[in-house]
């Protein structure tokens, strides 16, 4: 018996983000409109649903922190622009939260398909909860995929962005559970000569390949 399930394309880390052009609550937007700054593109399953509403409020609460980090925020679901407008007006009316970022209306699922947002095991019609961190050169730097029934954590999203930007700025890596201000990982040496020099370089080393430093 042949497998007739559809092949889903997924963006890959380190590669150019799939281009898109789609209507949104702020007019027609293209990926290239965000070039030169970081973009956090996220999807939610559906407007007027409870977990999504909590996430929209939470994303709004970190909006200013994202702007400080030169990160634009862009939502997406397969609902229409009219549905998005009605929903964000409802959120503001019921909770007092004004949604400051645009939301793509991906009715034909072109963007959702390009970004691998529809996972039939969860839903054949709605996107799962995806997050794509795209850098100023439009390269995908990180991806998060969450299921329909578990909301995302904004602290982790901010921590992820801080880690990426710190790694870029200082040419380092960040260890498990890193937060800004913690010691960072010095990239492992790639030559015997560098490995010998590493232990005398003044870093906090457990061994030649495993060193940290404070920024």
């Amino acid at each position, binding site marked *: 018996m042949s497998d007739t399930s559809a092949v889903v394309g997924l963006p890959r880390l380190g590669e150019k983000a799939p281009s898109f052009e789609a209507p949104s609550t702020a007019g*027609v937007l293209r990926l290239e409109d965000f070039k030169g700054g970081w973009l956090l593109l996220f999807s939610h399953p559906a407007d007027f649903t409870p977990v999504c509403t909590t996430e929209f409020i939470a994303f709004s609460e970190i909006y200013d922190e994202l702007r400080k980090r030169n990160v*634009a925020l862009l939502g997406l679901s397969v609902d229409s622009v009219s549905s998005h407008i009605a929903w964000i007006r409802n959120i503001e009316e019921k909770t007092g939260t004004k949604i400051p970022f645009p939301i793509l209306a991906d009715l034909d699922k072109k963007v959702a398909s390009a970004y691998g947002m529809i996972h039939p095991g969860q839903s054949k019609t709605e996107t799962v909860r995806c997050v794509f961190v795209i850098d100023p050169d439009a390269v995908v730097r990180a991806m998060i995929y969450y299921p329909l029934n578990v909301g995302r954590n904004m602290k982790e999203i901010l921590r992820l962005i801080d880690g990426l930007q710190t790694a870029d700025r200082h040419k380092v890596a960040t260890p498990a559970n890193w937060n800004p201000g913690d010691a960072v990982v010095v990239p492992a040496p790639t030559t015997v000569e560098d490995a010998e020099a590493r232990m005398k370089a003044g870093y906090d080393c457990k061994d030649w390949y495993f060193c940290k430093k404070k920024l």
Partner: protein
Amino acid sequence: MPCVTADGKPTVSAKQILEALRATALTPEQLSEATHLPLFRIRSSLREIVQVGWVSENQGRYQATQEGIDRSA
């Protein structure tokens, strides 16, 4: 269209852009600084405003046309 109202007039954000482009040609980045609108919004809006003929583009700089100036008055 987000920059053009149902009666063919510029929206509030389009007016801001046309005002900023009235006297001088600006790049999208300069326009974003001048209007405090996000850069993505400027790029998206300029596509539309150029299409309706209210702004012209020359070597990456944008300036309001006479029609754009008249519309924003």
